[in-house]
């Protein structure tokens, strides 16, 4: 399998990694989240994979790494190593437009690119579109989300934080 040209192996590795679903946000893939920093080939043929953690304490980080290892083994791309890339730090700006669309469909308000402050923006309810919404808590069920409520339809909803 390592006889395959490096470019083909790199492409296969990207494909395998990009389609892994996030354990907490199943509609989103690692490709949508923008956490795959690089896949490159070392002179000895080992593929180096760099993944950005989203939040330092997010319990999904270890799980994602395990899933990535399994996906790469299943893709039969040969020897590889995975490392965590801290700098540049992951930002919610790296979530793709496809990822934002999926988040919205899932009922989570996507992060606005480079929004300066969560409090400054008026968020629309993902269900009824009303702008009459309030922040209940800047910390939600996972490190990446805040909890809001719509005063029009009275439903709570989650917002992906901008970091």
């Amino acid at each position: 399998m390592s006889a395959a040209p490096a470019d083909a192996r790199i492409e296969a590795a990207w494909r395998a990694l990009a389609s892994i679903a996030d354990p907490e946000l199943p509609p989103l893939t690692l490709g949508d989240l923008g956490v795959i920093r690089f896949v490159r080939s070392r002179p000895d043929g080992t593929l180096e994979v760099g993944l950005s953690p989203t939040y330092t304490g997010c319990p999904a980080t270890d799980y994602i790494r395990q899933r990535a290892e399994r996906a790469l083994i299943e893709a039969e791309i040969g020897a590889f190593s995975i490392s965590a890339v801290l700098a540049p730090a992951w930002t919610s700006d790296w979530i793709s437009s496809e990822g934002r669309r999926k988040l919205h469909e899932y009922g989570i308000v996507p992060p606005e690119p480079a929004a300066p402050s969560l409090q400054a923006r008026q968020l629309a309810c993902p269900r009824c579109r009303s702008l009459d919404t309030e922040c209940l808590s800047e910390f939600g069920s996972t490190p990446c989300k805040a909890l809001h409520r719509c005063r029009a339809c009275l439903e709570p909803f989650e917002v992906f934080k901008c970091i």
Partner: protein
Amino acid sequence: MIASAKTLTPLLIRYVLRLGDLSLILGQRLGEWVGHAPALEEDLGLANIALDLIGQARLLLAYAAELEDRGRGEDDIAFLRQQEEYLNPTLVEQPNGDFGDTIVRQVLIDAFQLELYDRLRSSADERLAAIAEKALKETRYHWRYSSNWLIRLGDGTEESHARVQSALERLWPYTVELVEEDELDREMADCGIAPPLAELRVAWSKRLDEVLAEATLERPPERPFSWFGKRGEHSEHLGYVLAEMQYLQRSHPGARW
């Protein structure tokens, strides 16, 4: 005096442990709130902050483990050291008290970590710079949470004002060691690894003054006395924190999830 490369590594390990232990012990303390906070939102908020802090601790302690290169991992360092080997400032091991006590402790530390991480981003040590870059983003959320609460409590009812004012007076003496430079801080600053604490102190102090004014709270007077948890000399409270935190690893050595 600027340390040579050979003498620098043990100093750098101690400095990294100071930062890592601060996050680790505060994360452990905040975790005690889970299931006990005054409202579900605060339960989530404090647990999320604890999670971020433990994440920072993992990055820092893993780095310390690599630097010392003695075959220990981040878990060994987190769970199997003796009390005097922990180098966190004494403030973070203080008991949670009521919600107001916890918020005051959090404001004092968040302001410190914000100013520290902001400057550490340009550290001569690339690994520390990368960790600081990552941690700073999370710390901004922590600060917004704690400072907003301090303003609500300080500028709230007579009761809430009195409680946070007294918490501030009780915890204030523990802040001295945070921003008072010792030999290790000076060595790290001379090597360009850490920011000079004198400069950090000014920024920390200014940030606090602004939020205290808005919260209608009075800044306690400075006292010369200082604790030195960052040198391993701790208050009576750390032993209890460690007993709970280390219980599993001590009872079942090598246990893994």
